[in-house]
């Protein structure tokens, strides 16, 4: 100890970080809106636990049956299920999880070891990881319920398999984050993903057609999969079941060996962060040029200057938000996918059934467009950061800000719906006049109704989000509840209106009812703008506090 200072061990540092994380979590409850946020989280958490519970029971039953039927080698299939769930869902739901960024602690004299341990351990503090571990526990319980003597071996396999999965997930997460941090690589990744998804749509029908030729090859491929972590975990347990402990240990060691390359890659990544890697959003410095600034594209002269300025700014933000682009392209891809499936169905002599349902294809596609395009509007100020202050210091009423953001969404929806129509036309699935009018009338109801609620939620429960970041991108718990409530209400009411049209025997009844609802929703939307503007003025402290820090 020198001058009252002693160097901490890695584990002392880890203990300090755990205490720090706990205090941050506890103190967050003291923030404004925190209690409501907690309620929202609890309610959404309950839904999640129900979903996890149901699947865990299936894993339990599966493991118990395989053990009882003396087919323990099949347990590998369950481990494959867990691995795919853990790795795939972790990437898809990364934005919804809350993760503490340990990089902020790198200014302290922290060992790389402690930094590594904390980042790995934090892999378990993720809802997807928790669910996956629950599934693994269910497998262990299933095996032990039939053969209790296998509990220690099953538990050891669980621990090791979970450890390997955490390393894989962390590795994928951190490398993807690095990949997505630069605009250029993000764009390339994005294009590759889109191409991958499109290719998949071609592969599925191809597989369906050629399945008879492909299936006999599968048994020849499967032994190669035995060397992968799920195969090794399943085989370790199967050998333990047949009391072949040497083979069990061999598979166990082989599974442990899988940890090494992923731990190494993760160490490299975290080491780069530890040494002060800086991931910049934009391209390298441009060559010096002292030219006048480029005048932005001319916006519509139909809207006032400040609204045009906000739309222009929103377009700039949209241009730089890959996730938003993905949201815009997904509905079109989905339409492409379903129209391809329907194309295949036609060739299988199901034309009559298809023609009955294809009329509502447009309705469904538009519903999906609205679902994806309007979802961000429930936390509309998420990406403003400190810039939000401009909306309060500039001489504009907040209704202009709301209106500009809503107008841009309307524009995007119009473009998306037009693209959907073009796709349907190309595929020969153009909707009939009744379905076309009903869908447009339903849009007139759903869009203003959603926007009114979304505008209110954006002001009442704001949550800061960041570009290019994979984690900590979850909306407020209350927002999630509001979104769920709105979707259920609007979905059910639309369903009732469609059914009313069918029951009445007059297909135009639905369109008529939707038009009435659209008139009411639009009036409500227009009437809400001024109160929402005043509400934003009153809530400006909460907004600035939540989004500017």
């Amino acid at each position, binding site marked *: 100890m020198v*001058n*009252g200072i002693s160097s901490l061990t890695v584990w002392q540092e880890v203990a300090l970080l755990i205490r720090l994380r706990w205090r941050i979590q506890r103190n967050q409850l003291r923030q404004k809106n925190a209690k409501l946020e907690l309620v929202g989280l609890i309610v959404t958490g309950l839904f999640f636990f129900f979903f996890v519970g149901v699947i865990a029971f299936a894993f339990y039953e599966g493991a118990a049956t395989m053990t009882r039927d003396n087919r323990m080698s099949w347990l590998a299939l369950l481990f494959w299920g867990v691995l795919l769930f853990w790795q795939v869902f972790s990437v898809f739901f990364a934005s919804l999880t809350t993760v503490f960024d340990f990089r902020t602690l790198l200014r302290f004299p922290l060992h790389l070891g402690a930094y590594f341990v904390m980042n790995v351990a934090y892999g378990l503090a993720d809802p997807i990881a928790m669910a996956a571990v629950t599934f693994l526990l269910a497998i262990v319980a299933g095996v032990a319920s039939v053969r209790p003597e296998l509990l220690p071996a099953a538990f050891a396999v669980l621990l090791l398999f979970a450890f390997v999965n955490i390393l894989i997930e962390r590795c994928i997460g951190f490398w993807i984050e690095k990949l997505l941090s630069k605009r250029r690589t993000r764009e390339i990744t994005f294009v590759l993903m889109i191409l991958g998804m499109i290719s998949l749509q071609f592969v599925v029908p191809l597989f369906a057609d050629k399945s008879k030729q492909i299936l006999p090859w599968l048994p020849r491929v499967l032994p190669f999969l035995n060397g992968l972590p799920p195969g090794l975990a399943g085989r370790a347990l199967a050998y333990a079941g047949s009391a072949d402990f040497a083979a069990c240990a061999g598979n166990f060691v082989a599974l442990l060996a899988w940890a090494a390359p992923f731990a190494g890659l993760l160490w490299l990544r975290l080491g780069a962060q530890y040494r002060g890697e800086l991931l*910049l*959003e*934009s*391209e390298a*410095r*441009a060559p*010096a*040029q*002292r*030219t*006048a*600034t*480029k*005048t*932005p594209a*001319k916006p519509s002269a139909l809207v006032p*200057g*400040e609204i*045009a*300025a*906000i739309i*222009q*700014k929103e377009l*700039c*933000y949209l241009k*730089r*938000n890959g996730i938003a682009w993905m949201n815009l392209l997904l509905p079109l891809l989905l339409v492409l996918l379903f129209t391809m499936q329907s194309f295949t169905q036609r060739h299988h002599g199901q034309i009559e059934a298809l023609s009955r349902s294809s009329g509502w294809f447009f309705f469904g596609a538009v519903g999906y467009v609205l679902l994806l395009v309007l979802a961000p509007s429930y936390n509309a100020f998420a*990406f*403003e*950061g*400190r*810039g*939000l*202050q*401009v909306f*309060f*210091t*500039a*001489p*504009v*009423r907040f209704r202009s800000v709301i209106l500009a953001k809503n107008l841009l969404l309307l524009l995007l929806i119009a473009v998306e719906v037009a693209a959907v129509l073009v796709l349907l036309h190309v595929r020969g699935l153009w909707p009939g006049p009744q379905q076309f009018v009903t869908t447009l009338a339903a849009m007139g109801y759903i869009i203003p109704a959603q926007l009114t609620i979304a505008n209110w939620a954006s002001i009442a429960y704001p949550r800061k989000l960041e*570009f290019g970041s994979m984690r900590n991108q979850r909306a407020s718990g209350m927002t999630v509840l509001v979104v769920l409530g709105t979707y259920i209400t609007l979905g059910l009411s639309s369903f009732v209106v469609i059914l009313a049209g069918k029951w009445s025997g007059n297909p135009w009844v639905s369109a008529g009812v939707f038009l009435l609802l659209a008139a009411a929703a639009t009036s409500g939307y227009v009437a809400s703008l001024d109160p929402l503007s005043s509400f934003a*003025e*009153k809530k*400006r*402290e909460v907004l*600035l506090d939540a989004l*500017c820090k």
Partner: protein
Amino acid sequence: MAEPAILTDKLTRRFGNLTAVDAIDLRVEPGQFFGFLGPNGAGKSTTIKMLTGLLAPTSGRMQILGLDFATRPLEVKRQVGVVPEGMGLFERLTGAEYLNFVGRMYGLDRATAAQRAAELLDFMQLADRPRTLIADYSHGMQKKLALAAAVIHRPRVLYLDEPFEGVDAIAAGALKELLARMTENGVTIFLTSHVLEIVERLCSHVAVIHRGRLVAQGSLEELRAGIAAPEGSTTTLEQIFLSLVGGDPTARPSLEELSWLTESPR
């Protein structure tokens, strides 16, 4: 006589039991370069937030250029430029995009906004990185951009919170000259800074806030007159400031408690 540029009447802001700003009466005349000083947590930022519309007062009134803020907020905001706390930048825009946006928000037409944006970027020496996002600007560059945005609409009252912090000496010199020219043309500048030398050099009038209350307000000469200077020298602003708030034992902590830090290591 012209209306005061800034006039507050018993302006108060409470946060629960804490009174951050306690019934302050500020009066700033047009064309004044006004320094607003106070120790950390004294209420400076809260006052500026209220004066710029970022925070609603609990009670009291504010008039900017004779316009009541509560009843005519938009007209007031049109006359005002501000560099808010944290600079208030949209970090995913380029400098030019941001200045164009702010210009348009203040009602400038497209061509004027673009022309002024280009000129300001040139003046602030930011024009050579047209494709760089604000997020990737250095702190000093962000500060210069925030200043440019605050003046793009030619405000009559300008609020500056630590305007020179992080700005290089060359740019700071040019900025000081610009601000001085603006005050000569009747623009009122309301500046907060912890660097008292800057305030002393630039400001003609000063107010000091301590624990939410105004403890002094007037021209530098008026404030100097109230403090006895050491023989043969002029009272500095630092001496004035310390005499106003430094007498408070909670305002200036004792070094004795930190003997482990101030004594030479054994």
